[in-house]
Structure formats: structure tokens, C-alpha cells
């Protein structure tokens, strides 16, 4: 296994899948060389596979999603790039009303095996319109599958699985993790939908999280390690999500903290908490706590933004609170 960055791991997954299956192609804004995408994830691929398979789109996100949807219905395997997650706002109709629903509305007569790659920002002073995590909109849209990686290996495994999946999958790639290196399997690596990963085993408290916050949760677990044994579950897939793995952990620890970067109100953490309290009534020894983005737009200034985004300290505080049985 080689140690490469998450951006390189994603690039590797695209490369391998384009090599393996000639139906796979990429479409997005500014993705060809020499730049290879706003965040260089597609670098080298237009040079290797040609501009016919790495399509540089106008700034037309509805057209990008539509073209991917139609091409997928016709048997291709498009991988669209929506440069930043916030831009889903301009193409939600194509994604949520069409890509997501066409299999169902056609009674299975048509299918939409496509992938949307989008960068999840935040924490880099990009301001209110370039910093949101919007997975909650997607998870609330039946027909879509959704995943978010936290490590280079997972990034490769999730993106490969997404490309091979028969349904539309959105993968949100956390920007701040693009440059973080990690060991990545050199050959094809597939992480099946709905499989979480226990990133740290523990027995006192379960932290359920995904994406960038996996690292904050691990830091928090380390910070409290002298007092408490914390299990950190990286969901990886949000839809479908691995209820069984989380339940098993929570039955063991009896205390759960759910963490994500998206704003708390209406976030995916509410869904997780609602499911867990239902299954574990009488088993838990503390309320399920959520640590999430504060209920405001994402601000620009570092002092404000770092307060808006959940921190390892806040996670540690929540871990201690549930360990004491209080909310």
C-alpha cells in the first residue's frame, strides 16, 4: 500500500474505473488538463483518456446533471463534478426530481447509474456560499445514495463503489482532507453501500460521525483517553447507513454522540438520533447528544467560522457529558 493524498486516491479511483470500463466518463467545469479541476482531482485524466471522456462543461450545473442523467439512462457511466457542494442549489431539480426519481417513476424501466462528485468545504474562509455541507438535503431524497470519505483509502473505496453502483450516488469530498495522505490499496477497492467503519474501538462512549469530523472525533477520543474509552464510527455511507454497526456499538457503550459539520437543525444527526432512541429505548444511559454546525450560515472570519464549525473540544465535552449520563 502506498501513502497518497485523498485527492490522489480519488484520482486513482477515477483512473482505474475509466481504464476498466469505457462507459465511464467525466463531466464538469474546468476538469481537463492542464489544471485538472478546481481542486486537481481529475488531473492527468484528460491527457490519458482524451477530451472525449473528460468533458469540460460550461458553467451550467443543471446541464451537467441533466447530461449525466441522460447518458446514464442510455447506458453510460457518467461521473459529474459539481465543483462545490453549495452549488447543488442551482441543480437540485435535476438531481432530486430527475436523477433520483427516474428509476422509480418509470417502474424500473429506466435506471440512472451516475455519480456526482462534489467538494464539501468549510473551515477555509470561503464564506457563506462556498462552505456548506448539504448532505441532509440528499439523504431526504429517496433514490439517491450518499457517501462521504474521511481517509484516502475510503475515498478510493467509496468512489469506486459509487461508479459501479446501479443508482445515482453523490459523494461529498471534504476539501480540508484532499491534501491529507494515507495508505491506499493499490488495486481496485470497493466499499459497499451501507458499510460503516470503526475507526477506533472503545467501550464507554460511541461517537457516530463521517467526513472531516472523523478526525476531530478521533482527536477528542484521544484527548479523553485517560478517562474514557471511546469508539469512533465512521459511517462513510449516509444512505444507506449502517444502522446495525451503530446499534451494536451503542448497545455496548450505552452512550452516543453524533457529530457532523452541517448545521445541527435538520441535519443528518437528527435522523441518527431518532433511529437510535427508538431502537435503544431503555438501553441508553444518557441522552444522545449532537455536536454539529451552529444554526447559522457559515461566516467568513476565522474567529467566527471556527466557532460555527464543531470542534474536537466540543466533541470531548459531549463525550464527557454522556459519560456522566447527562445531556
Amino acid at each position, binding site marked *: 500500500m502506498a501513502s497518497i493524498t485523498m485527492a490522489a486516491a480519488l484520482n486513482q479511483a477515477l483512473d482505474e474505473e475509466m481504464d476498466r470500463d469505457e462507459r465511464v*466518463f467525466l463531466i464538469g467545469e474546468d476538469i481537463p488538463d492542464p489544471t485538472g479541476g478546481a481542486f486537481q482531482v481529475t488531473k492527468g485524466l484528460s491527457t490519458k483518456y482524451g477530451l*472525449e*471522456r473528460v*468533458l469540460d*462543461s*460550461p458553467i*451550467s*450545473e*443543471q*446541464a451537467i*446533471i*441533466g*447530461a*449525466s*442523467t*441522460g*447518458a*446514464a*439512462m*442510455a*447506458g*453510460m457511466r*457518467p461521473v459529474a463534478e459539481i465543483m462545490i457542494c453549495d452549488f447543488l442549489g442551482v441543480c437540485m*431539480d*435535476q438531481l432530486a*426530481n*430527475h436523477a433520483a426519481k*427516474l*428509476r*422509480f*417513476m*418509470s*417502474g*424500473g*424501466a*429506466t*435506471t440512472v447509474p451516475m455519480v456526482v462528485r462534489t467538494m464539501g468545504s468549510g473551515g477555509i474562509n470561503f464564506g457563506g456560499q462556498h462552505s456548506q455541507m448539504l448532505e441532509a438535503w440528499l439523504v431526504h431524497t*429517496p*433514490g439517491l*445514495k450518499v457517501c462521504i470519505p474521511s481517509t484516502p483509502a475510503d475515498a478510493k473505496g467509496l468512489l469506486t463503489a459509487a461508479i459501479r*453502483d*446501479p*443508482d445515482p450516488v453523490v459523494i461529498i469530498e471534504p476539501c480540508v482532507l484532499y491534501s491529507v495522505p494515507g495508505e491506499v490499496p493499490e488495486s481496485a477497492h470497493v466499499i459497499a453501500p451501507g458499510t460503516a467503519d470503526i475507526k477506533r474501538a472503545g467501550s464507554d462512549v460511541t461517537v457516530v460521525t463521517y467526513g472531516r469530523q472523523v478526525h476531530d472525533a478521533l482527536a477528542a477520543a484521544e484527548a479523553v483517553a485517560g478517562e474514557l474509552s471511546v469508539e469512533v464510527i465512521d459511517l462513510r455511507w449516509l444512505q444507506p447507513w449502517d444502522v446495525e454497526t451503530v446499534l451494536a456499538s451503542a448497545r455496548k457503550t450505552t452512550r452516543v454522540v453524533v457529530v457532523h459539520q452541517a448545521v445541527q437543525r435538520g441535519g443528518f444527526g437528527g435522523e441518527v438520533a431518532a433511529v437510535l432512541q427508538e431502537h435503544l429505548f431503555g438501553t441508553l444511559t444518557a441522552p444522545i447528544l449532537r455536536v454539529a454546525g451552529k444554526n447559522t450560515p457559515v461566516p467568513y472570519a476565522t474567529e467566527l467560522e471556527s466557532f460555527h464549525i464543531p470542534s474536537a473540544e466540543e466533541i470531548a465535552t459531549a463525550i464527557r457529558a454522556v459519560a456522566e449520563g447527562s445531556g
Partner: protein
Amino acid sequence: MSITDTPRAQATVDEATRLKIFETTTLINLADEQLRDMLMTGKIAIIYYSPRGQEVLAAAAGAAQRPGDYSVTTYRGLHDMLAGGAPLRETLSEMLGKGNGTCRGKGGPMHISAPEAGVMVTTGIVGAGLPIANGLALASKMRGDGKVTFVNFGDGATNIGAFHEALNMAAIWDLPVVFICQNNQYGEFTPRLESQKCENIADRAAGYGMPGVTVDGNDAAETYLAVAAAAERARRGGGPTLVECNTFRFMGHYFGETQEYMPADVIAAAMAADPVPRQRAQLLELGTDEAVLAEIEQRVGQEVSEAAEFALASAPPDPQELFDDVYAERVSI
């Protein structure tokens, strides 16, 4: 290009094609009449956007399609679906929400798909079919399969963002798409010229570097020739065309609405120019035998009533099928 000389155009279309268009027009017209009948007699209660008045244009455009070509339409799409070859019985079944409908009762009138006939998408979101049509065409271009995608939409749809993005993308990538704007002069209750200033919708094509033509959509030959030429261009790799077909909605926006917003003389003029009898008269004038037309009408009429009976008699879907087709794998809850 503006409206061409109709009788001359008509004569350049061979008789087989003219009869094909006539037969499809008849099918659409009778199927539409059948649905309105079932609605008025209370046999069914569905939301229905009748294509009455727009039959000929769909039939003509359909005649320009080759087997394997793709088409995309809207909630007002019965004419396009049937012209594209969607199976009549299963289409009616779907409209009635039956388990043996094209979409197993899940889609309904606004979302008919019959991919075996190339009828790929029917959308209820104004303008949303255009970007998806590009994708179908992109697949054809990438594979070089020689298929053309025909996407139908209304005049009102030309004011929404998706139209703009789609035409621009199709133009720069020379996608094999024919954009068929069925300009029936109204979007819901708003006359076209209250929602846009351009004299003809086809004028917008220039901004995309794409040819645009305006035809009398109620004239079979003129429409057929324009769509066929656009399809030919697209198939050769020459890129997309915007074909604006002027027509009129006889039944208003949805079946049963008051139409009070439409001036009486405008409706009367449109009705007087009803494309269905007009096409019939043209055929007779060009020498087709009355008996040939009558035979088609009789045969298609039979087919339509049988299909209606089939649809009415069919069973609704089993509620448990709700969990199928959300994903490839069945879901629970």
C-alpha cells in the same frame, strides 16, 4: 426559415410517410378523445393535459424518427409518446394508475417511460427534459450509434434556465438533438408574448450558434420536413436545431379548466384551423383514397377502444410494490 409553402411541401413527402403521419394523428386524436370521454363520463378521475390541437405536429415529428432514436416529452405528452411508439395499452394503463402500466402505476400521466420505444423521459417540471435529452444524445455521440434524440417542450419552457443551459451545451458539443418547441401560444393561463418579447422563439437559437426554424406545426409536411432535416443534420454530426412548431391547445391547460383567460375569437380561429381535419383534406386533395383513410380510422378506433377497455379492466398495483424501484435493491419502510 419561416413558414414554407405548404402545398408544395406536402407534395415532397412520399405517400407512405403521409399515411404514417395520418395514422399516428388518428391514434393520438382518438386516444385523447377516449381519455376525455372517460373523464367526462366519470369512468376515471385523473389530471389530464390534453394534446388536442397538437396531434399533427407530434405525428409528423414522430415520422422523422428512426427506430432506436430517443424522445423526451412533458406532462402534455400523450401525442409525443404515441408518436414515439409507446405501447397504447400500457400507456393508457399507466395513465389510469394500473399495475400493468408502462411504469407499473408509479409514474402516471406526467412520467410515462417506454424505453423499448425510445420514449425515455416524461417530466412534469417545465424545461427539465432538455438537459436530460442532451445526455441521451451525448451517449449516442460518444458511442457513435447514430441515434438522434428528440425533445419536446412548450413555449413557456423557453423562459426557464434549463432551456438556456441545455441549448448552449448541445450547441458547443454538437450533440445530436432536435429541440422541438411546441408553441401552443400559452403557458398555463399566460399568453406567450406576455412572458417573452422575441417575435419567434426560434430567434433564440442564434444566441447559441444553433440553427432555428419556425414552422406551421399544424401542417404535417412542413413540420415533417423541418424535423427530418434537423434530424438528418444531427445524425450526420452537424449538431442540434431548434424547431419551433406553431400550434394551439384546444382544451386549455388541463382538461376541465375554464379557458376564460383566452379571447373567444382566438379560440375560434384556432378551432377553425383544426389540424386534424385539415390534414385529412390535404391527403384527399393529394389523391389518397377516402377508403384508405376510413380504414385507418376504423382500425385505429378499434385499437383505442380495446386499449381503453384493457386499461379500465386492469388491476391496480400491489401496495407492496411501493418498495421496488427506489433503488436497484428493494428497500423496506
